[in-house]
């Protein structure tokens, strides 16, 4: 144990910190190289556009989850919430066709309903957590069951289908493009930029970091802890609503199996991206890359026979665990 040994350790720690910031991005690049090697079709513009479009749902929800998790909370209800909002949108729009017709107004009203429900559902999660002083895990586990059963009830155990009359009007929100970029990707990017600005450049974002880092310190720093925490759940609800708005025209239906396990994928995207699950540190761009990675894994497995597509979940799970292991290694180093 000489001086040199110690400074070598220091260099390694330095590399780790670098890896922490760049890690998810490097892993994504590696995945893309792997994909390109496995199948020429991987880098085709059609396939890439498919990956990014598919990433948009989980990605948008995960941007919201980044706020909740950074502020030390967790929201397990997002998948059920998405299913419930999808169902409610379809019911409302189908009903409105009779009076308003199958025009843009009906779609806009459907979107408005989605936003109101998303914000309201998020506010419920947030208020019950903060006012009731109940663990977020428990509250959102409860609302997860509630939102899920509400959509099952609305669909009477079956499937709610969007009226074909309005599908053509609504269709461009998923299948359309702006300057050649699919609409969902544009929306995803916009949400990510908005999320980045809000989390990293505003007093609100700084307060999320502070609360997740140490709630007591935040309270002693004149921060309205309950208000900020509730707002993170509202942002989460809003993100679920936005994701749902572009999801509904894709299949045009909602059932009790809509959005199942989305909460886990969203949380996984956040964690892979380098946000601390215990709060206090969050990275929107990491989350975006995490969401794209999860979709890319599934995509690559689809393009190869080496690993069965049925093992998609196993590969994702492995990557989540490795990502967290790398983060933890970094933290242990810093303590010394």
């Amino acid at each position: 144990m000489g001086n040199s040994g110690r400074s070598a350790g220091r260099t390694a720690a330095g590399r780790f910190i670098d890896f922490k910031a760049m890690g998810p991005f490097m892993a994504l690049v590696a995945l893309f190289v792997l994909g390109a090697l496995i199948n020429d079709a991987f880098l085709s513009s059609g396939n890439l556009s498919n990956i990014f479009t598919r990433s948009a749902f989980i990605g948008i929800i995960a941007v919201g989850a980044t706020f909740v998790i950074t502020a030390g909370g967790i929201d397990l209800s997002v998948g059920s919430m998405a299913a419930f909002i999808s169902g409610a949108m379809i019911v409302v729009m189908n009903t409105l066709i009779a009076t308003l017709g199958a025009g843009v107004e009906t779609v806009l009203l459907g979107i408005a309903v989605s936003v109101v429900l998303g914000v309201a559902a998020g506010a419920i999660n947030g208020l019950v957590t903060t006012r009731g002083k109940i663990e977020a895990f428990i509250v959102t586990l409860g609302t997860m069951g509630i939102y899920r059963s509400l959509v099952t009830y609305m669909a009477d155990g079956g499937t709610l289908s969007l009226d074909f009359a309005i599908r053509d009007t609504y269709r461009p929100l998923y299948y359309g493009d702006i300057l050649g970029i699919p609409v969902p990707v544009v929306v995803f990017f916009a949400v990510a930029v908005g999320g980045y600005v809000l989390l990293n450049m505003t007093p609100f974002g700084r307060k999320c970091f502070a609360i997740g880092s140490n709630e007591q310190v935040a309270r002693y720093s004149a921060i309205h802890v309950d208000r900020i925490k509730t707002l993170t759940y509202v942002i989460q609800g809003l993100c679920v609503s936005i994701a749902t708005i572009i999801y509904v025209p894709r299949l045009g239906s909602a059932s009790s199996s809509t959005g199942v396990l989305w909460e886990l994928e969203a949380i996984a995207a956040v964690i892979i991206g380098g946000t601390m699950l215990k709060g206090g540190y969050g990275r929107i761009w990491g989350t975006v890359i995490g969401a794209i990675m999860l979709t890319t894994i599934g995509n690559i497995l689809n393009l190869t026979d080496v690993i069965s597509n049925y093992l998609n979940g196993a590969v994702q799970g492995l990557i989540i665990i490795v990502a967290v292991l790398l983060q933890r290694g970094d933290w242990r180093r810093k303590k010394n």
Partner: protein
Amino acid sequence: MKNAAKNAAEPVVSGQLRLSARQICKSFGAAQVLFDVPIDLYAGEVHALLGENGAGKSTLVKILSGYHAPDSGEIVLDGSPVSFDSSEDGEARGIILIHQELNLADQLTVEENIFLGREMTRGWFLDKAAMRDEAARLLAGLQCDIDPCTRIRDLPVSDRQMVEIAKALSKQADILILDEPTAVLTGREVDILFDQIRRLRERGVAILYISHKLDEIKAIADRVTVLRDGSHITTQAVAGLEKDDMARLMVGRDIAQMFPDQIADPSAPVVLSVRNLSVPGQVYDAGFDLRRGEVLGFAGIVGAGRTALMEAIIGLRPRSSGAILRDGQPVVIDNLRDAGRCGIAYLTKDRKGSGLLLNMEMRPNLTLLALDRFGRFLLNRKAEDAALEKAIAAFDIRAADRTTKVGDFSGGNQQKLLLAKVMECNPDIVIIDEPTRGIDIGTKSQIYHFIGDLTAQGKSVILLSSEMTEMLGLSDRIIVMAAGRITGILDGEDRTEHQIMRHATGISDNQGVSVHG
């Protein structure tokens, strides 16, 4: 044996040489924190380790107890060289370090903590009764009446310290290292701890006692080793040393003036009045006036309700009654924001638990309380950086670089940063709770002068402290609390340790208030 210091430092007691270290060097990264440091520890002695923050005391004892490996140098235990792989290794040899930061599991009971990892069992099951009895016996030996079934989170910090000591004793430590054990203890608890230390010394335990409280070293230690900037300065018998000598050895220079001159004008206008304030179960009918430019001290034993009263004033704790007047006008303060609007700021005594975000760097910590000043929608990083620049200069915060996590700072630098954070919202009234807990004498003096500067600028300070010297040295007037009530207001010549203790322990009766006021 070739150390110059050794000759001047034959043990005062005639025990066996138990543990000795030679030429210990240690670096963290590029920074060397220990330079060829020697130390000897004999059975039956209390050996004090004295030095400013950052002098290398904690690193040295972590090396002695196996938490760190030295880069070079030798550790000899009972005549044979040893190298510990881990602290468990050290503990197995009877060397136990009680950390400055307590290591107790909050959610477990006292008994469970004491026997954590070495539970007593009967067959396959825990023998709870035996552990409870043993825990109770150990605690009784320390003369503290903590129920072994209490959860740690329900205990005050001082009791937690006692639990740590009981835990160490239960491990049959015969070399006990205490890293600033009294930082969170009150006077009475310190006395009990010292009795216990003396008893351990009689039993032949070798005790290494880290502190920068010179009184304590005078009271308890046989020998003292002084470290400064990672180097061994001297090892001497305490008997021949005066406190001034120790301070000079530790700081390396004379501390010309520990406290600022007091200049409060007794006829200055009252800026804050509190009337009939009560917090259920904690504060009863408290009232006082704070004048412009004065330091108003609040003395009392732990649990007297001083912190509760202050937290109630600034809206962190619900009050059942009471009125607050700012410059004579009644104000409503329901939360810290209201307090901030009234120009009142609070500096917590728990800088790690409620003061600073330890996993973040300086900038977000500095601006957190006054965040709205740095932009309504977008934060102005440039303004934040400028504020940090100013604060570092104004409060002499010494950090290697700006990206260092605040948790890695020394206690003194953390406290300076906390002070800077609170001053960032430019308050007229600052309530400071324990401004120098766990801080070395040089930094202490700096902080006292910062407080002096505040009052010189016309700001008013409310000072809560359990350190008598700083209470007497800084305060213009001293309010004493006992059991949730104000029992005395001491002014001028009355500001003595004796008077404070009389009122704090309830020897005087409450009618004294108006007479003294």
